[in-house]
């Protein structure tokens, strides 16, 4: 007896149960579609560079906010302003602020200044996602209002270092980018 050829088999099935064959084919297509979509979703959901990008944006927004906080102070609400300074920082910078708080408070109370800050632009230059360390560049405009005097604007370029503590990015170091110092580290 000759072997049943595939196209004979298919033809027989088509003649006998055309709807069943069509339905099975459709099922197969649907299965393939679902499988492909599943793989596509899994890849997107477990994309390391996407997670890294999210962390970069987290670090930048925390960095910009913290730098703004640390350049904002109203002599009328010193307590609140300095509490915000402390909650925006961690590590060495935090310790320095805590240690110098009383002295600084006295200075601002006497000068009666109101400082506000606006971030003009910011960028993350380094990000170690695992260690929880990042460096940011921030262009900042600080407006200082002294009693009786005019408000004065000062643009500054800041270099910040951020450390992730308990899931939050906080400033651990902050300084002005030095002028005339060509040795960029």
């Amino acid at each position: 007896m000759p072997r049943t050829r595939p196209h004979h088999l298919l033809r027989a099935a088509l003649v006998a149960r055309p709807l069943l064959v069509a339905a099975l084919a459709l099922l197969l297509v649907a299965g393939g579609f679902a499988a492909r979509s599943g793989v596509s979703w899994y890849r997107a959901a477990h994309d390391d560079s996407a997670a890294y990008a999210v962390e970069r944006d987290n670090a930048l927004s925390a960095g910009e906010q913290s730098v703004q906080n640390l350049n904002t102070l109203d002599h009328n609400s010193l307590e609140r302003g300095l509490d915000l300074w402390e909650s925006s920082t961690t590590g060495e910078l935090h310790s320095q602020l805590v240690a110098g708080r009383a002295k600084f408070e006295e200075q601002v109370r006497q000068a009666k200044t109101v400082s506000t800050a606006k971030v003009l632009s910011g960028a993350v230059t380094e990000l170690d996602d695992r260690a929880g360390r990042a460096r940011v560049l921030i262009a900042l405009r600080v407006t200082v209002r002294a009693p009786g005097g005019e408000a004065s604007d000062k643009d500054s370029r800041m270099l910040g270092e951020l450390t992730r503590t308990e899931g939050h990015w906080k400033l651990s170091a902050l300084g002005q980018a030095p002028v005339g110092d060509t040795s960029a580290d």
Partner: protein
Amino acid sequence: MSVWEGIGRVVKVAEGEAVTTETEAVGESGAVEESGDTDAPDRPPARSRRRRFLLGGVTVVLVLAGAGLLVKAQELRAAPAAANHALTDTEATTRVNGDVSSALAKIFSYTPDGTGATGRSARELLGGRAARQYTQLFAQVRERVAEQRVTLTTQSVRSGVVSLDGDSAQVLVFLDQTARRGDHKPVTSAAQLSVTARLRGDHWQIVDIKAR
């Protein structure tokens, strides 16, 4: 990739699978008899109907699940964070930083007798609005530079890529500019610039500069 393109591609793959299944069925003896069996008129209609519902139901569920997953995947990929390749694409990030920094150093550095060379490199390194602004500014400065023997040296101190998406990038650059007038002592000042750059061939060209 749009959602529909994705589906189209999936269907093609699934068709390919269907063909292989048919050929696999060759060796199975009794396959024809079985399909003949299901056609028997004395077969209980309830069982056939249940099977039909099951088949249709599973197909619908698979299609819905597939569509849902595809939409989720698209959402994840289109997230603003993922679309910005600053730092995630380290090679491109280094490239933009380098090209923009060296371009700024070139166009904002000149000697009293070398303004021609500066202007020439600017034509190559700048485009769009930045080129127009620079041409205007440089025309004003040029005479004074020769007259007062001014030398300007610009160096990029630090730069960071704010956003990087395909052939377009935003870069924040901190510059040091040292100016020397005649025999006077040089004066160094700081500048912050927001630069928009576009990839032209294998080089990033500056198309807009904003002082910060």
